[in-house]
Each structure stands twice: as structure tokens, then as C-alpha cells.
């Protein structure tokens, strides 16, 4: 009976969804609602208003900055929740299964990772700093830094990666996404505009394009560093071995 009811429910839901899909406007049609409301404004005016050559960055950081500020805060809250449950490590005294296992890792893997990780970090810096003019931005670059630290930790162990990215640095930078974004928002008020206004009325017209671009880059860098440190801290909290907080022999 229960099975029959759930089957009927799923069938009805599937039929409803298929019906809605059949009524949807064809993909890519220029008369679609998604193409006629805000998109023309973004595509035609963002070059002169948001001063970001990558329209996506202009939309995310400038037009929908308030939305992104909220998202950045959510990521920071995720870290706070993970740390509340798993706890922070004691400084310089952490190990994980890589150190605790007796199996030595392959020389080829160690050499390759040691060679590749610096280039991954370099690429992530490129993604963060070029977010204004090419695909990518703070969040993507930060995620790439996080991924590079994941590779490093799985091969060389938590102790060495916590030496490379010490607790002091992480604790200082974790909030940088929220803090930078919020301070830029406050600076918009001080500059004579609204919260999160990038074009400050008190600054002369000729300087405003450069101001908007550099504020966008500043926010991107804040999100990149903050996001990267949040990812790394969550990883460290999760892979830390229980009861391994003793000094290394």
C-alpha cells in the first residue's frame, strides 16, 4: 500500500514536471523572459557601470554585491560550524593518517606533487587577480588553492602542511572575505553613496572607472584568500587524527 502511494505520487510529480517542461520557452530564444529583463542591461551597460571586462564578475561583485556578501558569510558560517563540532588543532602539534601509517608514499608521487603544487598556486593567483577580465574570480581561485592544499596534505601529511599554512595565518585570513567585502561596502557610504556602492560620488568622475575596477579586484582578492583559508581549515579539522595532538617524536 505504502509502495503504491509513493509510486503514484512519483508518477504524478513526473507527469507534472514533464508538462511544465513542455510549456517552457525554447532554449536560447531571444524573446525568453530570462533574456528580456535584466540581461540586456548587464550585457550592454556593465562595461560602463561595473567597469569589469568579465560581465559575470561585474554581476556577482557589483550588481548583486549584496547577494554575494551573504554567500560569503554563509561559507564563513560553514567553517564556524565545522570548527564548533570538530575543534581547532593545537598549534604545531597535529598529525593525520599519512604520518601515522607505516606505508611510505611513492617517490614518483612525492616528486610530482612537490613540482606541481607551486604551479597550481600560481594558477589560482592568476584566476583570482584576473577575475575582473577573464573567467574565474575570488571563489574559484580560492577553491583551487584549497585543492592544492588537499593534494599536498594527502601526500606529505598534515604536519608539514600545517607548517606551510600555519594556524596563525589561517585564523587571520579566514574572515578576510567577509571583512573586505563589508569594509568596501562601508567605504561606499563614506564615499557619499549607498552601502556597497563602488562609484563614490565624492570622487571626481575621471577617477571613478579606475576606482570601481580596483575595488572589484580588492573584493576578489579578499574572497580568494578568505575562501582558500576556509577550505584549508575545514580540511585540516576533518583529517586531524583524534588524540594525535602530542608533539612529534
Amino acid at each position, binding site marked *: 500500500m505504502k509502495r503504491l502511494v509513493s509510486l503514484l505520487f512519483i508518477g504524478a510529480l513526473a507527469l507534472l514536471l514533464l508538462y511544465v517542461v513542455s510549456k517552457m520557452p525554447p532554449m536560447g530564444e531571444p524573446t525568453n523572459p530570462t533574456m528580456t529583463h535584466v540581461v540586456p542591461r548587464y550585457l550592454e551597460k556593465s562595461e560602463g557601470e561595473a567597469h569589469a571586462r568579465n560581465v*559575470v*564578475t561585474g554581476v556577482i561583485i557589483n550588481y548583486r554585491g549584496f547577494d554575494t556578501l551573504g554567500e560569503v558569510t554563509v561559507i564563513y558560517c560553514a567553517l564556524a560550524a565545522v570548527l564548533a563540532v570538530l575543534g581547532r588543532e593545537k598549534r604545531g602539534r597535529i598529525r593525520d593518517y599519512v604520518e601515522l601509517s607505516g606505508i611510505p608514499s611513492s617517490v614518483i608521487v612525492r616528486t610530482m606533487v612537490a613540482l606541481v603544487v607551486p604551479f597550481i598556486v600560481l594558477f589560482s593567483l592568476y584566476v583570482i587577480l584576473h577575475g575582473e577580465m577573464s573567467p*574565474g574570480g575570488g571563489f574559484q581561485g580560492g*577553491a583551487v588553492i*584549497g*585543492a592544492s592544499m*588537499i593534494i599536498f596534505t594527502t601526500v606529505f601529511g598534515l604536519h608539514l602542511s600545517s607548517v606551510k599554512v600555519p594556524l596563525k595565518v589561517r585564523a587571520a585570513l579566514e574572515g578576510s572575505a567577509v571583512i573586505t567585502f563589508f569594509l568596501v561596502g562601508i567605504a561606499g557610504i563614506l564615499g557619499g553613496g549607498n552601502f556597497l556602492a563602488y562609484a563614490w560620488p565624492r570622487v571626481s568622475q575621471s577617477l571613478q572607472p579606475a576606482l570601481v575596477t580596483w575595488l572589484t579586484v580588492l573584493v576578489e582578492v579578499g574572497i580568494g584568500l578568505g575562501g582558500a583559508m576556509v577550505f584549508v581549515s*575545514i580540511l585540516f579539522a*576533518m*583529517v586531524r587524527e583524534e588524540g594525535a595532538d602530542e608533539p612529534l617524536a
Partner: protein
Amino acid sequence: MEPSFGALLNVLLLSLLLVTALLAVSSRDLLASVILFSAYSLLMALMWQRLQAPDLALTEAAVGAGITTVLFLVAIFRTRRREEE
């Protein structure tokens, strides 16, 4: 009409997406599920690029295929099943 290379690629990517998604959901082995989910994310990153959304492709590749996979793996190794198989 001769189907174009792009259309064929779309069909291939979308069908692989469906297969990996279904296998990831139906697999009994959590490890296999996570790896399939990672493959799904990589294919999705390619699909975002096909849909001309390189920003999303970068995010999907770094977060979906990289970070969430590892966090899921760590979470699996750190937890134990209590229920009987």
C-alpha cells in the same frame, strides 16, 4: 541532416551525466558513489563549458570534482556504519 560534432558531443556528455548520476545514487558502496559523483562533476564542468559558462565550469571543476569529493571521502573514512548490511 548530418549531425554536427558539437551536437554529438552534447548527446554523449548528457547521456554520460545521466549514467553517472543514476549509478552514484543507486550504488551500495559509498566510496564508489563518491567517485561517481566526482566523475559527474567533471562531466558537468565540461557541459558548463559547452554551454559557454566558463566561470561555472571553473567552479564546478574546483569545488565539485576537487574539494567536495575529498571532504566526502574523509567523512566516509572517519565514520562507521552501525546498521547491519
